[in-house]
C-alpha cells in the first residue's frame, strides 16, 4: 500500500482547516435548515394550525373542487392542484390571478372549501428555501453560495480522511474527560466518521439536483442549446401553446385522472397515484390537463410518470416516461428529497443531519481551541471566527426558536398588508440571528452559555405558546394521535433540555483568567 507523504497530508490539512473556517458557518446553516426540512410538512402543521386535519384517504373529486373554487381561481388560465397525503392533509391550489400574479389557496379535503389559514411561510415556505438558497434570490446568488458550500463539503470530507491518521483505531473513541481541545477533536472525528456516507451523499445529490443551474450549458448542449427542450426531455415539461381565444368547458378531471393513473399502473405493474394535477389554458379550447406522479411512497427513485391529456376530448397528448439517464439521477435526487414513506429512515436522516451539525460546529470549535492558548486569541481573525462560530451555531438555533415563537405570538391582524405577517416572522428570525452575532462578538466565550439558555427558553416558550394559542397541548395531541404537532412539541422540549444542560456545562468557571498559558502540544 503506497504511503501518504507528509507534504500531501499537510496540504490536505491546510485545505481542511481553511475551507472549514471560511465556509463552516454557511455549511452549518445549510445543514441545520436541511435537517429541519426533513420534517417541513410537520412544521407546517405546527405553524399553521388550521391545517391540522386528519387525512382519511378518501377520494377527492377535482370536478367538484374546480366548480367550488373562488371565481378568481376558477377562471384562471393556470390552476394547479396538489393532491392531499397523510403528511400534507390539505389540498394545495396554486393559480394565476387576473393580474398575472400567482396565488396560493389551501382547501379542506372534506368540504372543498378554502381554509382561512395563519399567514406564515412556515417550514415549506422559509426553512426549506433557506436550505436551498439561504433565501437570497438576487441573481440566484444564494443557490451559488450553497452550491459552493456543497462542493467545499465534499473537499472537506476527502481532505479530512487524509488528515486523520487513525480512522479505524479511533472509530469508537470519545474522551470527554480529556482536555477540551482533545475532546472536541474526538467528537469531530466521531461525528464525521459515523455519518460519512450520508455526508457525501447529501452535498453530491444537492449539486446534482441543481445541475441545470450550475451547469446549464452542458445540459442544453445536446438540445442545440435550448434549455426548455432539455427540461422537457428530462422532466416531461409540456407547452400547450397560445390560447385560441375560443372559450370551451373542460372535460371531467376525475375521468382523466383515472385514465392517467390506469396507464401508469399498467406500466408499473402496481398502483400509481397522481400527486399533481394542473390545468393549462383553462377555459380555452386549447386547454390541456397535466398529471404528475412526483414522489412515490414506496420507492427512493423520484417518479418517471407524467401524462398530458386534451382538456376537451381527454385524449392522451403526451405519455412521458423518464429516459434511463433521468432514472439514474432520480434515485440520487430521491435520496435527497426524502419524500418516501419510510419513517425509520426519515428519523435516521434527521439524526444524520444533527450529526452533520455537530461535525461542522466541532470543526470550527477545534480551530478556536487550538489557538486559545496563544497570543492569537486577541487577534481580529480569531475574534471574527469566534463570533461567527457562536452566532452561526447557537445563534441560528436560537433564531429558529424565535421564528417559532413569533409564529404563535404575532397577531393575525397585526399587519394590514397581506403577506406582511408571514414576512414579520422571517424578520424576527434574521433579527435574532444578527443580535446573536453581535452578542457573541461582545461577550466572546461567555456568549455560548447565554445563547444556550436563550435556546432553552425559546423552545419552552414555543411549546407553551402553541398550547395557549391553539389549545393543542401535548396531552391533547398525543391522545388524538396528532403526531406532527406532538412530535414537534416533544422535540422542542428535548431541545430545551439539551440546551439547558449545555448552558450549565458551558457556564464560565469562577476561576480568575490567567493572562497567558501556552498549551503543550499533544
Amino acid at each position, binding site marked *: 500500500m503506497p504511503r501518504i507523504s507528509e507534504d500531501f497530508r499537510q496540504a490536505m490539512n491546510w485545505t481542511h482547516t481553511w475551507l472549514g473556517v471560511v465556509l463552516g458557518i454557511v455549511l452549518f446553516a445549510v445543514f441545520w435548515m436541511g435537517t429541519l426540512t426533513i420534517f417541513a410538512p410537520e412544521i407546517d402543521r405546527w405553524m399553521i394550525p388550521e391545517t391540522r386535519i386528519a387525512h382519511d384517504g378518501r377520494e377527492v373529486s377535482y370536478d367538484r373542487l374546480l366548480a367550488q373554487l373562488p371565481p378568481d381561481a376558477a377562471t384562471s388560465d393556470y390552476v394547479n392542484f396538489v393532491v392531499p397525503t397523510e403528511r400534507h392533509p390539505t389540498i394545495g391550489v396554486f393559480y394565476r390571478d387576473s393580474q398575472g400574479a400567482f396565488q396560493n389557496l389551501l382547501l379542506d379535503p372534506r368540504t372543498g372549501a378554502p381554509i382561512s389559514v395563519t399567514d406564515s411561510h412556515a417550514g415549506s415556505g422559509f426553512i426549506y428555501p433557506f436550505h436551498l438558497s439561504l433565501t437570497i434570490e438576487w441573481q440566484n446568488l444564494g443557490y451559488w453560495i450553497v452550491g459552493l458550500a456543497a462542493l467545499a463539503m465534499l473537499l472537506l470530507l476527502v481532505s479530512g480522511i487524509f488528515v486523520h491518521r487513525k480512522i479505524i483505531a479511533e472509530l469508537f*473513541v470519545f474522551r470527554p474527560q480529556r482536555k477540551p481541545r482533545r475532546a472536541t477533536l474526538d467528537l469531530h472525528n466521531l461525528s464525521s466518521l459515523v*455519518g460519512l456516507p*450520508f455526508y457525501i451523499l447529501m452535498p453530491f445529490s444537492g449539486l446534482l439536483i441543481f445541475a441545470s443551474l450550475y451547469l446549464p450549458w452542458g445540459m442544453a448542449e445536446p438540445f442545440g442549446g435550448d434549455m426548455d427542450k432539455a427540461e422537457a426531455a428530462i422532466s416531461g415539461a409540456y407547452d400547450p401553446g397560445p390560447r385560441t381565444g375560443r372559450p370551451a368547458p373542460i372535460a371531467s378531471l376525475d375521468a382523466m385522472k383515472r385514465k392517467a393513473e390506469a396507464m401508469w399502473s399498467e406500466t408499473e405493474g402496481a398502483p400509481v397515484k397522481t400527486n399533481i394535477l394542473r390545468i393549462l389554458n383553462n377555459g380555452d379550447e386549447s386547454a390541456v390537463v397535466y398529471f404528475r406522479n412526483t414522489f412515490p411512497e414506496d420507492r*427512493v427513485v423520484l417518479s418517471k410518470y407524467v401524462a398530458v391529456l386534451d382538456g376537451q376530448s381527454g385524449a392522451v397528448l403526451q405519455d412521458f416516461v423518464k429516459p434511463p439517464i433521468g432514472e439514474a439521477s432520480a434515485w440520487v435526487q430521491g435520496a435527497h428529497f426524502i419524500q418516501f414513506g*419510510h419513517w425509520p*429512515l426519515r428519523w*435516521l436522516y434527521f439524526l444524520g443531519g444533527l*450529526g452533520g451539525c455537530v461535525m461542522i460546529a466541532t470543526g470550527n470549535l477545534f480551530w478556536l481551541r487550538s489557538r486559545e492558548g496563544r497570543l492569537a486569541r486577541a487577534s481580529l481573525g480569531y475574534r471574527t471566527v469566534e463570533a461567527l462560530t457562536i452566532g452561526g451555531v447557537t445563534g441560528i438555533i436560537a433564531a429558529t426558536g424565535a421564528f417559532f415563537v413569533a409564529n404563535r405570538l404575532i397577531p393575525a391582524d397585526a399587519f394590514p398588508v397581506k403577506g406582511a405577517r408571514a414576512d414579520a416572522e422571517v424578520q424576527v428570525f434574521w433579527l435574532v440571528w444578527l443580535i446573536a452575532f453581535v452578542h457573541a462578538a461582545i461577550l466572546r466565550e461567555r456568549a455560548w452559555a447565554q445563547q444556550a439558555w436563550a435556546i432553552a427558553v425559546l423552545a419552552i416558550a414555543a411549546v407553551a405558546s402553541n398550547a395557549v394559542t391553539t389549545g393543542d397541548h401535548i396531552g391533547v395531541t398525543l391522545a388524538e394521535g396528532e403526531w406532527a404537532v406532538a412530535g414537534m412539541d416533544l422535540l422542542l422540549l428535548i431541545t430545551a433540555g439539551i440546551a439547558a444542560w449545555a448552558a450549565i456545562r458551558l457556564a464560565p468557571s469562577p476561576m480568575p483568567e490567567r493572562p497567558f498559558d501556552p498549551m503543550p502540544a499533544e
Partner: protein
Amino acid sequence: MNMLLLLGAVLAALFGCALLALSQPRHWQAVTRTRSEPGRTPQRLGWLLLTGSIVLTILRDGASFAALFAPVLIGSAVLVTAMVLTCCPRVLSPIMKMIMPMN
C-alpha cells in the same frame, strides 16, 4: 414481519458494532479491566453481524432503500457504541463474556 426484520437489522448493527469495538485492545481492556488481548472472534462475529444487518435491510426494503438505510443505521450503531464505551463500558461485559469461550 417488517417490524421483526427492522428489529433484527437494528440489533445486528448494534451488536456488530459493539463486537468490532471489542476487537480493539483498548476497548477490550477497558471492558475486561485486564491486559488481555481480544483475539479474532469479536472481529469476525462483528463483521458477520454487520453483514447480517445489511442483508436484513435488503430483505425488508429492497436494495434501493437499503443502500440508504444500512449506512445510516450502522453509523448510528457506531455512535451508540462509542457513547456506551465513553459512559459505561462495563455494559458491554455480557457480550464479552458470551464470546470469551469462543476465543
